[in-house]
């Protein structure tokens, strides 16, 4: 516990990720990493090499961007990692392409296995390279039923459910690595 808290932004920037510090007191995590599909595995590997543990993988259904409609399915997958030795949470976020496929990280973090299967159950995201992409929490008889997909009229665009962009900018100045809240 006596160890000085470290900020991991540079480590992720160094690996070529788009990493931004966030206001921990409002969001509950320290670093936000925007990923594209090809970076997912490298992101997980970097987190593993730095000694992070996996917290969860979750999905999010938003209205696809009109311009990118052809490429984007409107599904987002959120990864969260944290540390045992200090307070530092990172969030990785990736947009799922229209093929509904993103690479699996279950060989890097074996714990991701169930989280990925759960995300497939709830959203229909298929994790490429997963050894056992079967329903986990939902019934095996109906693998195409995805309860967390929203109806068209309830969908909101990603901008409508994201923090306004000026907040992270303002937070950047004051958000030095901190130990508590």
């Amino acid at each position, binding site marked *: 516990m006596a160890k000085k808290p470290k900020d991991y932004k540079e480590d992720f920037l160094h690996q070529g990720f788009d990493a931004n510090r966030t206001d921990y007191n409002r969001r509950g995590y320290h670093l936000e990493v925007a990923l594209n599909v090809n970076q997912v595995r490298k992101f997980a590997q970097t987190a593993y090499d730095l000694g992070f543990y996996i917290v969860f993988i979750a999905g999010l259904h938003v209205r696809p961007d009109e311009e990118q409609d052809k490429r984007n399915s409107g599904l987002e997958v959120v990864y*969260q990692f*944290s540390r045992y030795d200090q307070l530092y949470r990172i969030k990785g976020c990736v947009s799922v392409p229209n093929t509904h496929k993103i690479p699996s990280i279950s060989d890097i973090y074996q714990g991701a296995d169930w989280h990925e299967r759960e995300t497939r159950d709830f959203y229909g995201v298929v994790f490429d390279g997963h050894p056992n992409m079967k329903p986990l929490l939902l019934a095996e008889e109906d693998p195409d039923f995805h309860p967390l997909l929203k109806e068209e009229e309830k969908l909101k665009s990603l901008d409508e459910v994201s923090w306004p962009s000026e907040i992270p900018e303002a937070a950047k100045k004051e958000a030095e690595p901190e130990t508590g809240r």
Partner: protein
Amino acid sequence: MLESEYQEHNRFFLNMGPQHPSTHGVLLIVLEMEGEYVLDPQPVLGFIHRMHEKMGESRPCQSFMPNTARMDYVCALPYNHGYVSLIERKAEIEVPKRAEYIRVITSELNRIASHLLWLGAYLLDLGAFTPILYGFDDREHILDILESITGSRLTYCYYRFGGVYQDIDDTFIAATRAFVKRLRKRYSIYEKLVTKNIIFIKRTENIGIVSPDMALRYGMTGPNLRGSGIAYDVRKNEPYSVYPEFDFEIPVGEQGDCLDRYMVRVKEIEQSLRIIEQALDQLPDGPIRAKVPKNIKLTPGDCNFAVEAARGELSYYLVGDGTSTPYRLKVRVPSYSNLSCLPELGRGILLPDLVSILGSFDLVIPEIDR
């Protein structure tokens, strides 16, 4: 007969659960066996899946409160705590000090109740019948105390955004102090009955060793992680509520076997008692609930809040869209990650050892299935 033929001949599948006393709920584990040895245990989940996350995003955030207690019903108050704290962080609600103290006292009482229930149930799995009677005897006192202020014995819905439902009274304080005193006197009974029992030690020592690297790969938390020697506790590492004001320790094990996980939980009971004592001594006066708008607007953006439940780190992750209904509510439950290591941990062990490992993990199935 060739060796491969012999193996083929002796391999069989065994369904453990969904109705099996040592799976502690409706959990099925499909075991590929060779004689007494487990080759591949595969948990099958979802028997009591209720889709709490969908319910979370289809009603105003206040209406989700009762759901929080129905995931981990053995230790429901930390689930209350995590959820109200999440909304308070999102809506920037200040909570009065007294309310936070009451939350800590009741949460810690609930943690002790959960550990006592686990202690009894685990030993029942290992074939010892008596300890659960002692455990239930002590736990009953906690349930009575909590019932007097929360109104329920198991699925509490006591915390509110900005505070708690009602204030604690002198009867509650006196009963809690009496309970602390009583439980301390009972340690020697448990020690004689269980901790130093040679049969118990033989069933738990060097069995189901979780290495720190394995814990990290599976995202294990709670006493299951601390048994492996990593002092990670959300109450200390990511201090929330008024926990920083109390002096308590994080017990850790050495090698991460079933015995270490047992010892960690037993020692945690004492630490929880210390927190309760300090909180009762320092209990401030004042209001128990802040003024909170009836219709809480959840501003756009995501937000995470983690608390230490009895089984490990519980994270709520919320995405707001400006209305009072969460756009997305993800619940990260500790037992889900803790159990996910079973296929790796249970490979090549004896069937009775698998029962011992499952018990030492302190699983609550409705929490895993959500």
